């Protein structure tokens, strides 16, 4: 049975990508999964993990990757894991490389897909600005290590274990001399260009534009608008997409009641996926869309938001 170590970094709510990735690597076979993390990120009862190691050591701050690496190295030397997974969060991204050096093993970053061939784990990740996909294997003797993108993998099986929870501390942790002087919440100046998902409204939702926020909320998205909505004074120009607005490259663009003038389409650079919701399924935007929903945009928001909330509720019940 494979022994797997997961580092929990709870920045992303409802992210199950680490467990999803484990499932892909073990091909449905059971594995011994140990999770390690700070108290706020750790479950307090039975969970998907066999063991949970809760970091309770005042000398090891989450920004001190030198100390944290030392602790995780000690954990590995006790358990000898076959696989170590970290999330590609800001902390995971700088902690994983340190740990890989400490354990003299290779590391693959931002894995988006995993396959197993003849018992060898193939890690697949985008490279060169996404121009290529690379299939990578570990060649050293150490554990297979990777970081995975939050929400990148979704488990399909339900896993519930009698979880053994233990506090851990480091031994002889070296003081790295970093002192936290101040921490302040970022003032969020949202820029639609930074958003992975945009919920965008046009003339078709002019009078009910505020409803877009409901869909944006459940999809962790930002709201943007066509010029028509901006010119009507409903929203500020800073969220306008198009030639006279901003050029955006989200992964998903949901166009609600937007016909899709040439100027609007000009602003949709490298959008991976477009969903168009329009009463006219022959509107120009629909020719760019992977998925066209013919109908009223507000009706669409109502129904889809209800569906998403219902399903996330079902999931919570299943796991509780």
């Amino acid at each position, binding site marked *: 049975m494979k022994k797997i170590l997961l580092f929990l970094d709870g920045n992303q709510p409802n992210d199950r990508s680490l467990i999803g990735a484990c499932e892909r690597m073990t091909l449905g076979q059971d594995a011994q999964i140990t999770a390690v993390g700070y108290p706020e990120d750790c479950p307090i009862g039975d969970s998907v993990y066999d063991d949970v190691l809760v970091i309770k050591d005042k000398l090891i701050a989450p920004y001190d990757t*030198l100390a944290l690496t030392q602790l995780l190295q000690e954990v590995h030397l006790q358990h000898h894991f076959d696989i170590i997974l970290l999330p590609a969060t*800001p902390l995971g991204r700088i902690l994983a490389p*340190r740990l890989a050096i400490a354990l003299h093993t290779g590391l693959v970053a931002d894995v988006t897909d995993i396959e197993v061939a003849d018992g060898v784990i193939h890690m697949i990740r985008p490279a*060169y600005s996404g121009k290529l996909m690379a299939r990578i*294997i570990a*060649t050293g003797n150490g554990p297979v290590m990777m970081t995975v993108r939050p929400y990148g993998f979704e488990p399909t099986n339900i896993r519930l274990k009698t979880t053994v929870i233990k506090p851990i501390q480091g031994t002889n942790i070296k003081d790295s001399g*970093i002192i936290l002087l101040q921490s302040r919440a970022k003032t969020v100046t949202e820029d639609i260009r930074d958003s992975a998902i945009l919920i965008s409204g046009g003339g078709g939702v002019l009078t009910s534009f505020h409803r877009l926020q409901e869909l944006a909320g459940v999809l962790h998205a930002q709201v943007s608008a066509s010029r028509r909505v901006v010119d009507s004074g409903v929203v500020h120009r800073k969220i306008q997409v198009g030639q006279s607005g901003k050029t955006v490259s989200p992964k998903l663009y949901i166009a609600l009641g937007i016909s899709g003038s040439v100027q609007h389409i000009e602003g949709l650079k490298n959008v991976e996926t477009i969903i168009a919701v329009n009463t006219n399924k022959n509107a120009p935007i629909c020719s760019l869309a992977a*998925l066209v929903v013919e109908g009223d945009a507000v009706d669409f928001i109502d129904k*889809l938001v209800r569906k998403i909330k219902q399903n996330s509720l079902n999931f919570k019940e299943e796991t509780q």
Partner: protein
Amino acid sequence: MKIICLIKFIPDMDDFKYDYERNVLIRENMNQILNPEDAVAVAFAINVKKYYPQTVIDVVTMGPKNVTSKLEELLRLDVDHATLISDGAFIGSDTYATSLVLASYLTLNKADLILTGTHSLDGDTSHVPAQIAQWLSLPHLSNIISLNMNTMDSGRPELSADHDQEIMTFALKLPAVLSLQKEAPYKLPYVRYEDLNKVVSERLQVLTLKDLNLKKEAVGFEGSKTKVIKTFVKTQLRHDKIEVTTDEAGIQTVYDFLKDKGFLS
């Protein structure tokens, strides 16, 4: 104070050439640009030197010989020395082997401050700065958006880093590895007119495997702990457009679509 900036010249992605047989990027004869966040790190070092003129700035890069002209451009600014680490033996090095090469240089050449960018636009793993810090047992902070210039010679410099939802301000002890991010307000100056043709080659050195006391098997394909076994071009699936309405089946289709694509957790 001695500052070493680890920098990387990256292929201009519009001029992308790849050896599909050996699975390596063809870096020779390729239009190269200084990785933007590394430029921020060098620009910061130049600012420090303006404030504290006794500061010495070295830039170090690994790559093919054709980047020497790029290094000379930096030497015409306020950079004191430039080092190119170049050897055919390094071809195929993953981040483990690459970080070992740079850490070997830094073991032989000590600095108070080792500066890098947080990301590079080509590989974009962000591994190497953290890995170097580990080889050298030094603290490392990344995503740095500002450094307090008044504290730079205090022995406890202060800086701010962008940690997702928070801006955190730290004081640290040197030596340390610091990775800047592009939001930091430091920009490389232009070369002064009178310096445009300044001869700088005597301040540029090229080092090879031997100079760093490294064994051939510790670097390149052999020294790497990961191996790219295949690369493939992401196929732009020319989708057959799905058409639905807002009835129950249609909404279910949209829901499943969002879930399949990973937009729903």
